[in-house]
């Protein structure tokens, strides 16, 4: 019988992979995808709990996470485009202008 833990385990795995993507890849696009992965993992956990706790607030939150994710991607990619135009290649390691 499926229980909450099945879903949460899956979301944990997805979250870990998302984090891994973010850390390993140097191309900011892929990193954003990593972030999307993590966000989705969280969404999954939300929905799972909503389902098993008979509480619809989880779904509402997912809704909000969706908007946040969308906004985040929009701005992120705009940034990437702007950086790309300034340097004609995109590599996170070289972008260290904000050095302390």
């Amino acid at each position, binding site marked *: 019988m499926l229980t909450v833990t099945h879903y949460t385990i899956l979301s944990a795995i997805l979250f870990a992979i998302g984090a891994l993507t973010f850390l390993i890849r140097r191309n900011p696009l892929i990193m954003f*995808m990593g972030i999307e992965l993590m966000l989705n993992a969280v969404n999954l956990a939300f929905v799972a709990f*909503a389902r098993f706790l008979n509480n619809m607030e989880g779904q509402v939150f997912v809704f909000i996470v969706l908007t946040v994710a969308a906004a985040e991607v929009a701005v992120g990619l705009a940034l990437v485009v702007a950086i790309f135009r300034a340097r004609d290649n995109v590599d996170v390691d070289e972008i260290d202008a904000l050095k302390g």
Partner: protein
Amino acid sequence: MDYGALMEGIVFYLFAALAVLAALGVVIARSPIRAALSLALVFLALAAMYILLNAPFLAVAQIMIYAGAVLILFLFVIMVLNPRLDIVGGRNHAQTIAAVIFAVALGVLMIAAFVAGQPAPALGQFTPEFVSQVGHVQIIGALLFSDYLLLFEIASVLLLVAIVGAMTLARRERDQHANAKHDLR
């Protein structure tokens, strides 16, 4: 044998495996396009999960927003920039190894936390039967516009800001030269 439960189990494991593999695909994909596509797969697998978890409205939203808007945006940007193939891990190997170790550790820890935790009593009043009887969208709408109205407003403001931000950042400068000078001073 409760066929319903069995069916549910199979579907879950199927899509779970799909999601994980697709996620891994995102990690190791050399070209961004292939990564974007595998990301799409993940979105779809999750959409299926939502249906399984009795949240059809969210499933549709997931497909439309994530798979639809976000992914297309990714593909669009990839097309605009068509960046070189990017090698995995980059120069800093120590960084990569450390990242892998800690990511795995994170996953293991979270799983342990979930397994160890006792399932909380289902005390909400939105049982699946009640939900399907009243209708998903109505409930979400009711909740969204009653208790979480403030949240809703903030989300809308956030989106507005994001839009404006994105536009200004990515705007192609007409007088490229003036702007640059401005930045450098």
